[in-house]
């Protein structure tokens, strides 16, 4: 099976992925690591070793493991509802690639 290109993380489901917060204006959020168990338009809920943590998407940078790749993603790129992700994520990819 042909593997998915890493840029499709923007159009992919995030629930179930392993995520680490690598940059945040709130220093206590940096280093939070866990599996995404829920997502809203502006937040991700992570299941960490210390329990469930809700992290805002905007202004944060996440390190995410996706199809064998480790990607660094700015939260502003995924700050929309999960159900809108395919439409808006693909739009972002197309714009970046110059297909739009």
């Amino acid at each position, binding site marked *: 099976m042909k593997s998915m290109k890493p840029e499709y993380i923007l159009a992919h489901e995030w629930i179930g992925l392993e995520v680490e917060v690598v940059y945040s204006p709130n220093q206590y959020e940096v280093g939070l690591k866990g599996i995404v168990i829920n997502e809203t338009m502006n937040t991700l809920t992570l299941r960490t070793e210390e329990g469930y943590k809700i992290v805002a998407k905007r202004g944060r940078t996440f390190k995410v493991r996706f199809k064998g790749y480790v990607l660094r993603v700015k939260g502003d790129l995924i700050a929309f509802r999960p159900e809108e992700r395919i439409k808006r994520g693909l739009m*972002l990819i197309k*714009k970046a690639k110059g297909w739009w």
Partner: protein
Amino acid sequence: MQIDFLRFTPDKEFLKCLGFENAVVFAENGDLEGYENHSYVKGEIIRPENPEDLRKKLRKVSRKSVVGVESNSISINREAVTRRRVDVILDSVGRRIDYVTVKLAAEKDVVIEVCLSKFLLTKGARRMRLLRETEELLRLIKKFDTPFVITSGASNIYEIRSARQLRDFFSFLGAEIKKAEKHAEILFRKFADANFIMNGLEIEERP
């Protein structure tokens, strides 16, 4: 990261002395010498005579190089902004760019170059007019949040200036220097860094 857009291939050490980390080197027909030895990014200049000619020339350009359009005509620049293969609208003494083009560039993510060499090549009333036009252009760029870069645009060693001089000069004209540097870095990394996918998304480890 300080990136300069040039029309000749300078020595890397010399460029570092001026405060630039790297450069995009433009040439017509892509016939550059020695750019690979210095790890510069290659750029191709297109100088079309009319919009039809632009479309024809864009079919022949390489996908691995930055594509810049240099023209004195408003209609060509406007057409260039709408073409997906065009990365940057290059600056020159006679370049004419209007309100609509700047707005379209913001939508289509095409970078507008604002260079210093045009001020060095002119004097007197012509230079005054250029200053006024550049100030107006920078105001429009700020209004529409258009991607832009400030460069020396030098075609020989005598036109090149240090990064600090560029920053000081264009900040006096009202340019947002941080944004310009960010846009130059994005454009550079798009072609030079295999791990860079888009602004805000990059690969850290491959399988």
